[in-house]
């Protein structure tokens, strides 16, 4: 499980758009095999942080290291090849494809056939398709979405789409999984399922997970550590118990509730 190796090292990144400072000197150490939750008010820079890690935004200042490699300026699509996968706040599936093809599409970085190979298909590309289908079926089985294997995802209900999106991230066989509000808009039962999947991924694959979530009960239950952002700055970090009692966090985010 969790150990002391720093898996992802975000060093004082800053980011601004259109005059608004989205992030200011945010630093994060994510240890190998831990679940780190990032919480904070809306607009505090949580998604921007994930966007910088996954290469969708470029930090104006600061560096990001993953497994010791500097990925600050790595092209976006290469970052996935390093083993960083993510899900999105507003579901971003390939709406016209089936569940199966969504997952197969995420095997992209693990597949090899090039343009010519795909045009000819028989032989390598065919064998490769079958080989990766095994991996994908395993994930489908794990997430209990067999019944929607060949359903076009655009028409699925919200909860299932969230689950397929998690499956698509898993199909990348990530070493680091970034989850952006995986449980928004879910009811209690769906949230329990999702929590179970996240914990299982964590236990079975020892995947490092960074999670943004607003449901404090859930975050407190499943996270090893929590980072709190406010106005683009990190205001606290620690175990759930420490965060729960941190006056700055209560003042900026939690209110008197917890």
């Amino acid at each position, binding site marked *: 499980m969790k150990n002391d190796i720093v898996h992802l090292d975000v060093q004082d990144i800053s980011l601004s758009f259109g005059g608004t400072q989205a992030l200011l000197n945010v630093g994060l150490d994510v240890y190998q095999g831990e679940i780190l939750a990032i919480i904070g008010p809306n607009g505090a820079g949580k*998604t921007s942080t994930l*966007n910088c890690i996954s290469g*969708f935004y470029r930090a104006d200042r600061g560096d990001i290291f993953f497994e010791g490699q500097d990925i600050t300026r790595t092209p976006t699509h290469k970052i996935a090849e390093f083993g960083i996968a993510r899900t*999105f*706040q*507003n579901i*971003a599936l390939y709406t016209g494809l089936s569940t199966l093809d969504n997952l197969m599409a995420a095997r992209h970085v693990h597949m090899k056939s090039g343009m010519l190979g795909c045009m000819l298909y028989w032989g390598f590309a065919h064998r490769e398709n079958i080989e990766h289908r095994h991996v994908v079926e395993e994930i489908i089985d794990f997430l209990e979405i067999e019944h929607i294997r060949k359903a076009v995802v655009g028409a699925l209900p919200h909860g299932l789409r969230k689950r397929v999106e998690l499956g698509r991230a898993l199909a990348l066989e990530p070493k680091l999984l970034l989850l952006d509000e995986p449980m928004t808009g879910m009811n209690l039962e769906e949230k329990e399922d999702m929590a179970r999947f996240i914990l299982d991924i964590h236990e079975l694959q020892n995947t490092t997970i960074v999670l943004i979530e607003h449901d404090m009960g859930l975050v407190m239950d499943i996270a090893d550590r929590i980072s709190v952002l406010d106005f683009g700055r990190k205001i606290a970090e620690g175990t759930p118990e420490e965060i729960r009692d941190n006056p700055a966090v209560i003042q900026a985010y939690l209110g008197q509730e917890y």
Partner: protein
Amino acid sequence: MNWQLLPQFALTGILAGGPIALIALGLVLIFKSSYIFNFAQGQLLLLGALFTWYFSIELELNLWLSIFLAVAVMALIGFAIERFALRPMTGQPLLSIILMTLGLSQALQGLALLVFGGAQRNFPQIFSAGDPYKITTPLVHEGNNIILILKQNLVWSFVVAVIGVIIIGGFFQYTRTGLAMRATSEDHELAQSTGLRIRRIFGISWGLAGVVATVGGVLLATSSGLDLSLSLVVLAAFPAVLLGGLDSIPGTVAGGLLIGLSQGLVKVSKVPIVRNSAEIMPYVVLMIVLLIRPEGLFGQKRIERI
């Protein structure tokens, strides 16, 4: 290069850019309210000019009355197009809407040919063709001052175009209907939920586009004559709209003038292939801008969220 021709061609080019800007404005008008890029604007232009010709030459009505009638007919056609062709497309993807206007352009072009025939026509002269304005410049070439010769209709077309642009630009920025149009273009469903009558707004913008197209068509036909290829002029206005960034009215004007200027400038060259490149200059400029500054010269950068 024939340097002594430069001021003349540059100025004529810019003046010719006026009507291009006006035509481009018709495109922006629809785009700003309904997020549709109207590939059939050229055919609206053609129809506007054909109706003016029909009322004034065939029916021998007063020219200004003819233009007024043509404007009215085209506004109605604009409404009708919105009602019967575009409204059923609400909520369809970008490609379907692009194709709808492309299909419309084909249908209208065919219809124009079927009903009016393909012959070249004499178009009534609004601004006198002879007696060009002459401007003596301080620039000297071979002992003589360079004299710029500007055709009256070119100058007046430009003036009318600029006035049109100012009126419509002000309408968008400062009236409540203009605000409603800008809002509707961003999110139809949201606009509807706040109670904006989006169908009426679409109707108004298509009607206005018909009006603008007619004015543009008349301006062009009066300087270059009227036949069915008039609809192709709009192809030079497409890049102007994009150079301006698709939704910026001042940008569109600048784009139109820039295109006129670029077309004027290449004519100065002594190399035949460069001189003959005026017809593709809008697209050459466009390709360069797309590669260097893709959001257009004046467009807003889209806010990308994920």
